[in-house]
């Protein structure tokens, strides 16, 4: 008689999954503890871009704080895609959160008109940093806390503007890969057009994240997970990844560690802040 052979299935080249119910409950508890209990600021402002990351953040904040305590700030520039505004409106409608629209064109152009040589990259950074200024000012206006919307993939790839997208003091989704954000979005009921459309920073016409990055989010997430778990390039190639895509992801991660830290400060004493003088953020 031939015996059946039982063995583990081959490792899949897929990004890490998540249980959306467990994750949503945990993040709602995080937001409540962080805003209401610790910081005693039970209101949030979110830069609502029309993309899936800020939509998920808005849904989580609405659950945690109540929609009446969440302010979505739409900040279009004159060249922004019109659908970004309408997609953001779908989130406002679905959650019942408050919404303010502030056109940043005059502020951005007021500076850039003196910088005619600024290319797309500089212009995009000015827009992102202007949105940060508006978001923080609106947080003061509404006595609310700015909430970050950056996901783990873009943080690891350095695909964000330093001291802009990453500036808010609290971020519920920063340890979730983009593909996990999509799963969570479906569970939370984020409107389908936001989940289905190609992710875009919308800083230039027809821009998409995946074209900018040179790799799909699903593929990048799978590689990033392996990379963070300590797999060597050779071990990843054994698992079926291509050498070129591993190099692309590793190069982006390795060249952007600085973006995930506070500014580098020259140490001169044995009481240097965050080197010797160590106190937790919530102390």
């Amino acid at each position: 008689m031939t015996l059946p052979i039982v063995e583990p299935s081959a490792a899949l080249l897929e990004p890490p999954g998540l249980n959306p119910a467990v994750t949503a409950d945990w993040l709602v508890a995080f937001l409540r503890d962080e805003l209401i209990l610790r910081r005693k600021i039970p209101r949030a402002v979110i830069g609502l871009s029309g993309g899936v990351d800020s939509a998920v953040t808005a849904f989580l904040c609405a659950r945690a704080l109540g929609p009446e305590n969440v302010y979505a700030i739409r900040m279009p520039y004159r060249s922004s895609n019109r659908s970004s505004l309408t997609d953001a409106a779908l989130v406002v409608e679905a959650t019942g959160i408050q919404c303010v629209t502030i056109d940043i064109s005059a502020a951005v152009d007021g500076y850039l008109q003196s910088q005619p040589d600024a290319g797309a990259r500089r212009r995009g950074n000015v827009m992102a940093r202007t949105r940060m200024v508006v978001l923080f000012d609106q947080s003061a206006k509404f006595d609310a806390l700015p909430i970050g919307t950056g996901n783990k993939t873009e943080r690891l790839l350095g695909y964000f503007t330093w001291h802009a997208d990453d500036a808010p003091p609290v971020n519920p989704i920063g340890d979730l890969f983009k593909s996990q954000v999509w799963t969570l979005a479906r569970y939370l009921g984020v409107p389908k057009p936001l989940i289905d459309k190609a992710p875009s920073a919308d800083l230039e016409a027809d821009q998409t994240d995946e074209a900018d990055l040179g790799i799909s989010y699903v593929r990048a997430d799978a590689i990033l997970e392996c990379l963070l778990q300590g797999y060597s390039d050779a071990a990843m190639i054994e698992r079926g990844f291509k050498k070129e895509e591993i190099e692309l992801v590793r190069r982006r991660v390795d060249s952007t560690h600085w973006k995930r830290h506070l500014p580098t400060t020259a140490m001169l004493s044995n009481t240097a802040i965050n080197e010797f003088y160590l106190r937790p953020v919530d102390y």
Partner: protein
Amino acid sequence: MTEAAALRVAIVQTKPDKGEYRANLRSAGEAFAQLAAEPPNLVVLPEASMTGYFLEGAVYELAVTAQAFARDLAATWREASGGQTADLVAGFFENDNGTYYNSAAYVHVEPRDERIVHVHRKMFLPTYGVFDEERFLSRGRHLGVFETAFGRMALLVCEDACHAISATLAAVKGARVLIVPSASPGRGIEAEGELASITQWRDTLRLAAIEHGIFVIYAGLTGFEGGKGMTGSSFIVDPRGSILVQAPATEACIVRADLDLREIDRARATLPLLGDLAAVLPNLLLDPELPLPRGGP
């Protein structure tokens, strides 16, 4: 001393304000007052119960002597309970003449006096990834067991209990109830129902309870500290491995249960693994292939 056959336990699953020792004592007092109508024999609080867990250098500002902590804890209990007798267990950061430990104290409180029954200093200080304990604290180096009115017990603080040999040695030394104050930052979001780290704690301590025929009381800190969520989920497991009760993960709460300590003997009669272990363990530990220092200090 005749040991009691029943042990009424309450776990006060705390969500402390970071660094606010006095305010957290007051909050514990409010929970103690809730217990006064049906006073428990034993009240257990988590690791770092009065300060929060991630303190970094602030541990030097917040650590207290075991005597001061016992006095504060006992005074809080006495005031809240109207002077009832009880045993209290809680985790705290200990300052012993300028050497700092992550400790847990077992304190017997009488109407006018208190006595420290045992202080356990955490032996296994996690210092990897998100953890940084040994940068600031010293290791405990002894796993003691101690006598109570409810039989012999042992204390393990958090990672101490992740090493199977800790519970094993406590049980071989006669502990019938193992108390584990803990502060576990949650992670692992792929499984159904709860974070993976919560399941891991329950699995680990269920196995200890089943193997040795002991009760295990796990008191988990709760609340988020700088984005790291402590998983609460305090639970009590009986000597056959049944979870008698389990708290939610993210809420401060009180867990109560009445333990029938005769269950220990019944479970061991059914599954006498501890007796087997006690017989063979010396041979296992004397194995020259084990990477242990020989010949004493």
